Structure formats: structure tokens, C-alpha cells
């Protein structure tokens, strides 16, 4: 590909996509140009990134410690859900000590059926550590612990963006800005170039469009957000509190927390929603931002990839669209055609995106109407999480949410039939004790964070 890769958009999504693409392709002589455009909607002040961020940072050569320091980051082992009468934890990591332990989740469900006072969290290292405000980075020789303590980060959006922008500049990405660029097409309908205001014309090999806004009007979503100053270093997790319309989510940073909640109903309800938010959080200063979203089912068309619009269609406080954007960009890089346009590749890419999106949507719908989803119904019958075709949601997240919502299988697990109840309970007790011992020796999140920041200053 002789022509440059042009990325357009704004803020975090533009910088993240640029970093991934530039880090991968600039060493081979691909030229990357990022064009910053104005945005109509404000970005959330903080983002929750899942465990894929650690892998991504490794790939980019961007130290996690740097992000923690610059973007006021904290660690996240998952999400703590609070409903009216119950609470539970949805971890990134697996339950039990061994990710491959057959039917361990089923043993937990069997115990939960028999003992109403039991909870699943006690069998998950991440959940137990989170409850105690603890967090540790697993030693390099303990892949098992690293897996059991799989973590993400909460980061301040503005600082995270600045960090990536700096990184992109260091990589040699050309950074331009434009108020209203014009796309010029060739006879085949491919973008030939991007014309900026001053008459500059940038030739385009591929255009990665990171804009979240729909070109046409779509569904209007209202995002309520607020910030508080309370330090929550004893909480290495996000908090998800149920409301009458959905959820409000708190992401703790080093210097306070960011709250957000999304509402898609009538504007007439805003006062009531503000009131309930105030009641649930004790915060009075809620900002309201509205945005238009439209489904993007074919993000790859010709040489134009609408990755921003696609990611935005699943972006909400319960699911960070950045994760979807990263998936879309990495998937594309994995398939990056060399000289030739291959329609079959774009078709397969779009099919995979549809699958990814449908798994995220299923996960989101589960929060509201578990039994309206196939996954919820299957779990209620069989205690099984249906097999998924993409990595959009981790198996532990499905399981954690389903069991936390109180769904219990009607039918017992037949593969545990040759174990007596006491054998199963004894096995679970052993795992629980081992987890308790492990967590007892772990440092607090605050200690780990301090150590990371000190390492950086040295």
C-alpha cells in the first residue's frame, strides 16, 4: 500500500486507533496521518478498560505504570453490582484456582442451590481480593495467578488521550486538524483523498473513521455524569448501582470518582432521573449530554472503515466502546490486505463484527431483562453460559452476572452426578481456603499502586 493510512475522529478513540495502527505499521514504512475533527458530544471524563489493555500496552510498548501515573489510574478486578437488596461481583478473571477446572462453575451453582446464604464470590480470587481492597500484580513465573487476577484499569480520559497523543507523536504520526474535511472518491467509490480547509489534499490508502457520531440521525441517548472527590483506593473495581431505568456506574480514579448513567427514554423524565441519581449517589451536580447513535452493521466498505460509529453503537457506561474499537482495529490489522482489495475479507470482517456486537448487546440486555435473552433462558434451565464466538465478553463475566442476577438452573448438572454433595462441598471448601490464604498475603491496591508509581519515578 503506497498511500497513507488516514485516521479521522477526535479524542481518545482517535488516539487509541492511531497508536495501534501506527505502532504496527509504521515500522514497515506505512505512513499514518491522524486528522482531528471537532466533536459535538463530550467524552466521558473516565474510562474503564478491561484486561485487554494490559496486552495492548505490551504490544504498544507503553508501560502500564506510565498510564497509571499520568492518567490518575486505578486497578479494576471487575464490577461490584448493587441492586436494592443484593450485591455481587462480576470479575474479569475465572472462578476457582484453575481456569480449566471442569464443571467448577456448576459446583458453585449446586452449592448456591443448597445453601441460600452462600455466595459465588468466595470462590473467586479476584472477587475476594476486591472485597478486601487488595490487588497485586502476579509474579512473572505465576501465569496461573496472572490469569486469576486478570485486571483492567480506570483511567482519566483526558490524560489517557494526552498520553497516547504524545506516544503517537513520538512514533512520527502526522497530526493534523480540520473543521470540516471533504472526502473525495474515485470512480470505484473508494476514498481517493481527504481535502482539508486550506486546500491541502491528503491521499488516502485506507481511512479509519473513528468518529462516534452517526452521519444520519439515529437514536438519541442521554448521558448523565458527575464527579466526586472521595478517594476510593480501597476499591479496585467499578461499582454498578441499579436504578429505575437501568444503572449508574462509578469509576474510581486516584483523585476521586466519575459517575455516569445512560438513559434513552423521553426528555420529560430528566428531572425524575436527576432526583433518583441524587438519591442513589448523594451527588447533586449532574451534567447532561445527549448523543445520536446509529447501528453500523458494515463498518468496512471499500477503503473506509467506520470503526468509531460501530464501536459507538455498543458504547455505554456498562460496556466501554473503546474495547469494541480496539477489537475492530486489531481485527482489521490482522486482515490488512496488502496491495489488493479483497471484498471477501471485508465481508467476513463485517460478519464477525455483527457477531461481536450481538454478544455485547445480549450481555447488556441481560442486565435489564435476563429472561428475554437466549443466554438468560438457557442459564435458568441448565446453568450453562451459551458458547460465544468472539471474545467480546469473558465467560466469567457472563457467569458472574447471571448468577448475581439470581438466576439458578432448574436442572442439576449431570456431569457432577458421580460426586456426592459432601465431596463437592469439601472440594469447594478447599478452594475457598486456598483463596483466603492467597488473598491474606496480598498487598492493598494502594500499596501496589504506590509501588508501581515509585518504579516509574526510578
Amino acid at each position: 500500500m503506497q498511500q497513507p493510512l488516514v485516521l479521522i475522529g477526535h479524542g481518545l478513540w482517535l488516539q487509541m486507533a492511531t497508536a495501534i495502527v501506527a505502532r504496527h505499521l509504521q515500522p514497515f514504512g506505512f505512513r499514518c496521518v491522524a486528522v482531528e475533527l471537532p466533536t459535538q458530544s463530550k467524552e466521558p471524563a473516565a474510562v474503564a478498560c478491561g484486561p485487554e489493555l494490559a496486552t495492548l500496552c505490551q504490544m504498544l510498548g507503553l508501560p502500564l505504570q506510565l498510564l497509571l501515573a499520568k492518567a490518575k489510574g486505578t486497578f479494576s478486578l471487575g464490577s461490584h453490582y448493587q441492586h436494592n437488596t443484593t450485591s455481587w461481583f462480576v470479575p474479569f478473571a475465572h472462578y476457582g484456582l484453575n481456569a480449566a477446572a471442569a464443571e467448577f462453575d456448576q459446583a458453585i451453582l449446586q452449592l448456591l442451590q443448597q445453601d441460600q446464604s452462600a455466595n459465588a464470590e468466595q470462590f473467586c480470587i479476584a472477587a475476594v481480593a476486591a472485597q478486601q481492597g487488595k490487588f497485586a500484580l502476579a509474579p512473572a513465573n505465576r501465569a496461573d495467578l496472572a490469569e486469576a487476577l486478570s485486571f483492567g484499569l480506570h483511567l482519566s480520559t483526558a490524560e489517557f488521550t494526552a498520553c497516547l497523543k504524545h506516544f503517537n507523536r513520538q512514533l512520527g504520526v502526522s497530526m493534523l486538524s480540520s473543521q470540516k474535511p471533504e472526502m473525495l472518491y474515485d470512480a470505484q467509490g473508494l476514498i481517493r483523498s481527504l481535502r482539508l480547509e486550506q486546500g491541502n489534499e491528503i491521499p488516502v490508502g485506507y481511512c479509519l473513521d473513528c468518529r462516534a457520531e452517526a452521519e444520519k440521525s439515529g437514536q438519541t441517548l442521554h448521558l448523565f455524569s458527575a464527579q466526586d472527590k472521595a478517594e476510593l483506593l480501597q476499591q479496585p473495581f467499578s461499582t454498578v448501582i441499579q436504578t429505575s431505568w437501568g444503572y449508574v456506574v462509578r469509576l474510581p480514579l486516584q483523585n476521586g470518582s466519575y459517575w455516569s448513567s445512560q438513559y434513552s427514554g423521553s426528555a420529560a423524565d430528566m428531572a425524575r432521573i436527576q432526583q433518583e441519581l441524587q438519591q442513589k449517589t448523594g451527588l447533586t451536580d449532574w451534567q447532561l449530554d445527549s448523543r445520536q447513535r446509529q447501528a453500523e452493521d458494515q463498518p468496512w466498505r471499500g477503503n473506509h472503515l467506520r470503526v468509531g460509529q460501530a464501536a459507538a453503537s455498543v458504547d455505554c457506561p456498562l460496556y466501554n466502546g473503546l474495547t469494541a474499537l480496539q477489537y475492530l482495529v486489531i481485527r482489521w490489522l490482522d486482515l490488512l490486505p496488502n496491495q489488493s482489495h479483497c471484498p471477501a475479507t471485508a465481508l467476513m470482517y463485517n460478519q464477525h463484527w455483527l457477531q461481536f456486537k450481538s454478544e455485547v448487546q445480549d450481555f447488556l440486555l441481560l442486565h435489564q431483562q435476563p429472561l428475554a435473552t437466549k443466554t438468560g433462558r438457557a442459564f435458568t434451565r441448565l446453568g450453562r453460559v451459551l458458547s460465544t464466538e468472539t471474545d467480546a465478553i469473558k465467560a466469567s463475566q457472563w457467569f458472574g452476572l447471571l448468577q448475581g442476577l439470581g438466576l439458578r438452573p432448574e436442572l442439576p448438572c449431570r456431569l457432577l452426578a458421580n460426586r456426592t454433595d459432601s465431596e463437592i462441598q469439601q472440594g469447594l471448601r478447599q478452594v475457598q481456603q486456598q483463596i483466603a490464604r492467597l488473598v491474606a498475603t496480598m498487598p492493598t491496591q494502594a500499596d501496589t499502586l504506590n509501588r508501581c508509581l515509585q518504579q516509574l519515578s526510578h
Partner: protein
Amino acid sequence: MIEKIKKIIVLGGGSAGWMTAAALGKVLKNQYCQIQVIESEQIGTVGVGEATIPQIMLYNELIGLDENDFMRRTQATFKLGIQFVDWQKPGSSYFHAFGDVGKNMEGLQFYHYWLKMRSLGKAAPLDEYTLSSLACLEHRFMRSMDAGNSPLSNIAYAFHFDAGLFAKYLRELAEQWGVQRTEGEVVEVKQLDNGFIHSLRLADGTEHEADFFIDCSGFRGLLIEQTLKTGYEDWSHWLPCDRAIAVPSASTFEPWPFTRATAQPAGWQWRIPLQHRVGNGHVFCSRFMSEDEATAILLKNLDGEALAEPRPIRFVTGKRKQFWNKNCLAVGLAGGFMEPLESTSLHLVQATISKLFSFFPDRNFAQSDIDEFNRQMHFDYDKIRDFLILHYHVTERNDSEFWNYCRTMSVPEELNQKIQQFKANGRIFRFNNEMFSDLSWFEVMLGQGITPQAYHPMVDLFPEAELVKRLEGIRSVIRKSVDYMPSHQSFIDQNCKAGKIY
């Protein structure tokens, strides 16, 4: 309210029937519900599913098989892959080997590097970077050992075994675990008003009721099709072979640790080495070749003397429209058949059993569970089907009507996309749960003659001289590892040698 299943009948006692019964017996221990197998010695079994793929280990673990005992009892040999001879064109040959190909570097599959170096004429044949292929070529075998990063730590293998002995072995185990066997031929299937199966009446007049029926009656699908009229999706336009002739022959040399599939003018011929004999068969399309001609080709190509009369088998490739219908689950050939080219028949039996445990029903038979079970089974069948079609469709053979048909036939759109994508960019795109890995797709697409026009651009990150060095390093490690492996025969002799039968 759970209405517990009190009794399960498994109809048919071939490999599928006894695999199912043994797994049910082992897991349910006959305490949860009664398990009965009804089979008739008058009705033969197909019994040619003699080769497996590494996923068979999951089944063996489930029922707690002692591998060496199982090997001895079934006259088994080890299998490291399949050699495809004459598929791309007469005279060609390649391995679809189990396990890794080379060593991935910088997060990229090894084959991208290899494609680049091959295009520069600086790579050795792929087999020299693939432990299983090289071990196949030199007839070596061993199980994985604890050897750190060495390829010897991760040897993927499967088995070849005598399907009749396998069924007999499983029967013994199943009976020890409380499964009851009834000899008899079904003469009537009684249904309830809602169409559910109520009971089976046997030729001796006895009637056997159950809550759940597992149809392992083979191609005829006595319960799933003849009784429930479930319907069959015919794939013979994509997988046109519809006949097979099977014959065992005497071993004339030490068994190879691989299956050989040799293309013939209207199909292909298998060769499966066992400890006591060699299993042979000729799969062909009756539209393009007569049975006599197919038999003659098979007999002409045997290594040793034929040990029995050639046995004809008829089939229609395809799958049931539902694998699970009402209170009847079709397992094995009763559920569908895609010919034995990639040894997937027993794998599909095992996949069905595994899903059965995940979706184990009560007497309410929730339709939503059944629908999801069927969706997952259709996914498995459809993906395997596409992989099999690939072998026939991507070929340069133009030496017979059969191959002209296969080469020019239209194929499922998803397969077409996969082929186009590989041709253009050397990439393989697949969903998480597809059975065949990207390495399998790579080996077969390459082996069938597709040369990608490009490789992953990130490969160019390495200077050419560095790549030459790295590839040579990998090749040398593979060479040394294979040198360390004993011969297949001596490994068998030391660990699992079976008694003589013939």
C-alpha cells in the same frame, strides 16, 4: 418442577451407541436413571470409523479410559495426522498434521514468515518445521514429555483402532457401570399423542418404554427419521461421494502413525494401519464410477492380502434437519454423515455426547434447550462440511469427470470467502468455536495448491537474514526433537502392544 428422566434407551450398539452408553453409564452410574442399550446382532454396524482426531482425548478422560489398556484391547495405533496423496494433482502429497506448525514469532503465526521465505526460495518444505509431519514421514511416535519449550512437550495425537473391538470394549465398560443390554430387533415404535416416542416393541414381543431415546441406529435413523420424519438436508451436491467399499488387509510392514488418503478418479482411498491389520476403503461417487470398478481399484491398491470380502456401504452426505427432535436425540450416522476424509465421524459422536451433558433434559424437554442444542450441532456440522468441501473443490485435477465436477461446483458462500481471502492475503478467518484451527485450514489450503498472493505485512519487520536464521533454528529444533522420538512400532511394543488376532 423437575420431572426427572427415569429411563434412557440407546438404540443401536455400534461405536456411536456404545460411546453414548458408556459415557451415560460412567457419569450417571445407573443411579440417576436406568440406561438400556437395545441392539441386534442381526443388524451389522458400519464399523469403519477407525480413525480419530486429538479431541477424542476429551471423551477418554470423561470415561476415565486407561489409554494403554484401550490401545491393547482395540489393536490401536497412534495417529499424528493425515497424508493426502494425489489430491492437488497426481503425484502431489501433503500432510494435515496435528499440533503446531513451526513456532509463532511476535504474535504472528509461523506460516506467514514461512510464506515470505518460500516466495524468496529460502524456506525448506513446511514438513521440516512441523514435528508431527516429520515424525509421520519417519514413522516415529512418542507422547508428550516434560521438556520445557521443546516441541516434545506438546505432541498432539489421536488413534487408529478397530471400531468393532472399540465398541466391544466400551460395551464391557458400560455394562460394568450398570448399563443394561437387550438383544433384539425393533419391529414397532409406539408414539404418544404429542408425537413423543413412548416405547419400542421388539421381535420377541417385549415392549420397552423410556423417557428419552437416543437413536444410534445408523444411516436409516429408525427413530429420528423413520418414526419422527425429521427430514434430512442433502449435501451430495457439495460432497458427492455416496458409496464406500471397505476391506481389511494383512499388514506387510510396521504401522505408520498416520492415515493415508489417496485421491482416485472418482473419490479417494483410505489406509488406516492397526496393530493386527490395515483398514482400507474406497469412497467414491456412484454417478462417476461403478461398484465393480471401485472394488477393483481398492483391491489393486492393497499393501497386503485382503482378509475379508470387500463390504459395500451406501450413504448420502448431509445432516438431519434436527439432531434432537421431541424426546429423541440422533447420535452418529443417524444424525448425519460427511464421509471419513478428516476422521470427524467419531468426533461428532463425542461432541453430541458432550453437548447432551450440558443440555441434559428432564421430562419436560424444554424446546428452547433443544433449539440451542440443535443450533450448536448445526454449527459444528456446517463448519466441518466446509472444511471437507475444500479438499474436493480446491484442486488442479482435471483427469476425470468427477474432479471436473468438484473443481467447478459452486461452494457455500462462507467457504468461498475463506478461499478468496487466503488467496489474496494469506489470512484465515474463523470463529472461536470452529473445530478446525487456522493451522488446519492453512495446511489443507496450501496442500491443495493455493499459493497466497501476499503474506502478513508485519513479517517484513524482520530483516531477511534474521528470518533465515530463525527459520533455520526452528528447523533444527524440530529435526533434533524428531531424532529423539522412538519409532512408532517400538513405542507401541514398549507401552501398549496388543495380542495377535490374525
